[in-house]
């Protein structure tokens, strides 16, 4: 069985204690997307300011455990300033890392097995989460909400 240190890497605890890009953005111009983890009650709001196909600003509010909060914090630093296409690539890469064990039940699992060749940097610290299947939903909550937000702001503009 995996130990606590596999899950709670220092960098994760750091992002949890000192979250980056926390707060709300004015809507509009920003767009707000909301996500729930029905299992543990975590809620997250992702504020996204997309302009000219580029993420000008992104911030996070809501509440959650160390995994969901640190994942959200790292996510903001990973996608800030990126184009929408680049952001989608990071989302795909991150989700691929989180679904090695095929635990993601929704949707068909064909195809996505290989990890796209996008560097994840600090986000690699979250790799240990896959050994704790219940926590995968914590780690992916912000990402699914970002995905949803990007789609919503694309169709709104």
């Amino acid at each position: 069985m995996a130990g606590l240190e596999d899950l709670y890497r220092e960098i994760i605890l750091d992002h949890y204690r000192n979250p980056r890009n926390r707060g709300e953005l004015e809507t509009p111009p920003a767009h707000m997307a909301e996500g729930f983890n029905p299992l543990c009650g975590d809620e997250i709001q992702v504020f996204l300011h997309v302009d000219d196909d580029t993420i000008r600003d992104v911030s996070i509010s809501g509440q959650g455990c160390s995994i969901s909060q640190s994942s959200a914090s790292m996510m903001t630093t990973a996608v800030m300033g990126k184009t929408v296409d680049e952001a989608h690539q990071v989302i795909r890469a991150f989700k691929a890392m989180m679904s090695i064990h095929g635990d993601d039940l929704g949707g068909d699992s064909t195809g996505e097995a290989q990890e796209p060749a996008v560097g994840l940097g600090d986000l690699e610290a979250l790799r240990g989460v896959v050994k704790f299947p219940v926590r995968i939903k914590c780690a992916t909550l912000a990402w699914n909400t970002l995905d949803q937000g990007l789609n919503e702001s694309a169709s709104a503009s």
Partner: protein
Amino acid sequence: MTPPPDSIDMSLDTAAIKADFPLLKQEVNGQPIVYLDSGATSQKPRQVLDTLDRYYEEINANVHRGAYHIAEQATSAMEDAREAVQRFIGAPSSSEIIFTKNATEAINLVAYSWGRANLTEGDAILITALEHHANIVPWQQLAAERGVEIRWLPLTDDGRLDLTDLDQMLDGVSLFAFSAASNVLGTLTPVRQLADAAHGAGALCLVDASQAVPHMPTDVTEWDCDFMAFTGHKMCGPTGVGVLWGRTELLDAMPPFLGGGEMILNVTREGFVPNELPWKFEAGTPPIAEIIGLGSAITYLEAIGMDAVRAHEVALTDYALRTLRERHGDDLIIHGPVDTTKRGGVLSICYRDVHPHDLSQVLDQRGICVRAGHHCAKPLMKLLGVGATARASLYIYNDESDVDLLSDGLAEAGDFFSHQPD
């Protein structure tokens, strides 16, 4: 009806299979039990009972809720069973597999959720003359509430669906709900053909496969149906679990049915947001042990092979039809198709003028379990012109000796009831 008269190629090692089923070692009246009521419920192999015990002894915990070790194991065992079901019935995605308490709830789920959301006065549903009450009453409830019309597809004289007027009967129909296999006549229906006809008429179709899934390979993708229901306890699984399969697009568009825990994403005082599939339709604590037990039953059946299961039942049904008719001649009526490639191993019997209830009582005295009654298909019984039949139904653990004992029992019952008291 063409195999060589005496030697039968039994594809299954029934002796080995029988040894897996503890109940079949029971005695009744000092005689080994002869279980011929698998159409009502099957017996359970040691392997499934062990799975249930292991679940309760090692990982019992509520699912989807706890971050602790055994809760994770229980959740993943349950979701593994969902994938086993998906594979077993050829469904494209495991999120289309919804666990219910039995086939009846599965059909009611469609009637309440899809039916109430889509049907109103003037709409019509087509069912068939050989349906089980589970595929009749939910539609009658809906019909009474909404003024929906119910049409009945008739039967041929030998108990097959009469398709002569199918297209005409489908005209204006929103749903065609039919069984893949009859629990009274054994009739197998041409599912793909019926689904095509339904779709051609712009209708959806629901297949009650309660008597098919346990007995032959099932592939909902090949069937091209829209909903499919079956029940765990007839296929070596525990009681308390059934399955509804449905197409994602349909399930996604349907409102939830039962409300409560698990089926929500969020609840506020103002209202609730339903969860994703499949959990949207699984309110409250699911039958966890039972779902895992059903997964184990599927593993057991897959090890035998569903083609082999079917081949065995065809051969044994053929043996039964042949030997019973040879010996009992006109004393015996066996309802349903004679062609064993068009029927399952369900033998509804009328013997002389012995009432089925009395027949089964005499058989019981010899340890032979058959079911007497209307088999939850009263409209069909009326059509057959009988109040009840005695039904012997075959499964993987039955062999020729069971059929022979049944045959002896029929003769005894005839003697007992025709013997004149004075």
